[in-house]
């Protein structure tokens, strides 16, 4: 009935408002990023311009956003511009009082990173003892404050066989969504890739099971954000666009205002302070190339290319230097 409209602006911006963190995660993509932070005042002015272009939502990340003392003011500014406000946090600093303050500042959803249903496993991976307990506590406090919650789990070697346990854990903690994030080879994720990343065959097995669970578990929204699953038959309307969403529906802004297609593609296409977002969105040659990728290698003869468009562009770029290359996670020979 309807063709996809030409998007006048990103739907959502993933916005890293700081880089400092109280955790030592072994897959962190931003730990090596030492860029400066914008002041709250400058951020707020930038968010007003972003909202005026039509962006519907901002998702704060970092770093740990709660380490910014002016987070509540920044969120209030974004919400005041009419944007939906959410963030990803490790949950360590969220108690009942903070949860209420986040709600009052305009947060509608907070995603908490939890990588295992087992506290010790999570704590070891995140590098902070007691972090699992505090993350679980944060989920409860946020829910009590009226904020929707989700769990973000980065799939890697130590949790990829724990799908059922992770789902049971999410249900027990009454979250609205469980996000299984695919492993990105960025920052420390690249440095620790050999230890943490799965083989293509392991990814295939994981996604087969996760898709089956997604169909069976109706009480929980299980999100799988990896374009390579198109070859397993997930071609329903639940996919927003074909291939990576980066540069098609969303953009990333770093703590110094630099704009990149996504948080895992370290290609700066402008800066939110000095450049016009609309101009970048419409005319960036990098975005143009991401939106119109050229199949190379095994993708050139693959019957699934039309659905997955080569898979995750960030991973291809990190491992081969070219985001047109086949996704290194792809299991198709």
């Amino acid at each position, binding site marked *: 009935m*309807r063709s996809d409209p030409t998007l006048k602006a990103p739907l959502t911006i993933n916005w890293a408002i700081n880089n400092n963190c109280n955790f030592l995660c072994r897959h962190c993509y931003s730990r090596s990023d030492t860029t400066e932070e914008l002041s709250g005042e400058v951020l707020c002015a930038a968010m007003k311009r972003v909202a005026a272009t039509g962006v519907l939502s901002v998702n704060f990340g970092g770093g740990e956003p709660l380490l910014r003392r002016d987070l509540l003011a920044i969120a209030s500014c974004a919400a005041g511009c009419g944007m939906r406000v959410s963030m990803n946090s490790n949950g360590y600093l969220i108690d009942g009082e903070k949860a209420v303050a986040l709600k009052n500042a305009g947060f509608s959803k907070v995603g908490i990173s939890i990588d295992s249903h087992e506290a010790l496993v999570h704590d070891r991976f995140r590098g902070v003892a007691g972090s699992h307990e505090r993350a679980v506590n944060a989920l409860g406090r946020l829910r009590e404050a009226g904020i929707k919650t989700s769990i973000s789990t980065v799939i890697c070697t130590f949790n990829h066989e724990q799908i059922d346990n992770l789902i049971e854990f999410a249900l027990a903690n009454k979250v609205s969504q469980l996000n299984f994030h695919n492993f990105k080879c960025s920052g420390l994720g690249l440095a620790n890739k050999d230890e943490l990343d799965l083989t293509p065959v392991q990814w295939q097995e994981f996604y087969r099971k996760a898709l089956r669970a997604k169909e069976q578990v109706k009480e929980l929204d299980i999100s799988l954000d990896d374009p390579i699953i198109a070859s397993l038959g997930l071609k329903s309307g639940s996919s*927003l666009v074909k291939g990576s969403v980066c540069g098609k529906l969303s953009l990333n802004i770093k703590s110094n205002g630099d704009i990149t297609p996504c948080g895992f593609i370290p290609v700066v296409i402008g800066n939110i302070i000095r450049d016009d977002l609309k101009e970048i969105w419409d005319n960036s040659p990098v975005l143009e190339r991401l939106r119109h990728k050229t199949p190379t290698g095994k993708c050139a003869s693959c019957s699934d290319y039309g659905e997955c468009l080569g898979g995750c562009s960030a991973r291809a770029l990190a491992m081969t230097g070219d985001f047109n290359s086949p996704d290194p996670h792809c299991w198709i020979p």
Partner: protein
Amino acid sequence: MSKIYRNPDVMWREEDESREQANAALEKGENAEDIGTSLLFSDGMMVTLNVLGTEIWKMCDGREVDEIVAELLTQFDVEADVLKNDVAGFLEELAEKGFIHYEE
């Protein structure tokens, strides 16, 4: 009869360029049914709507179906019965996706 409300969790916006394209087609008497002019976005699900769908969506503010149809008849040159069926089918689709809800 039930009042129809948009789900407040759904984010949405109109797309100016596509809207202009659809308006230009309509002015020339061409079919704009296939031109998406707005999009709805919620929890990873996105739906695009054409001109008629967009107008219906914007009227899901507590109005009843008959009120929406009556208003649309002033804007679009269509048979009332055909329009009523189209509107009912469209709303059913939105309700299934959880984008609207009904209140007595």
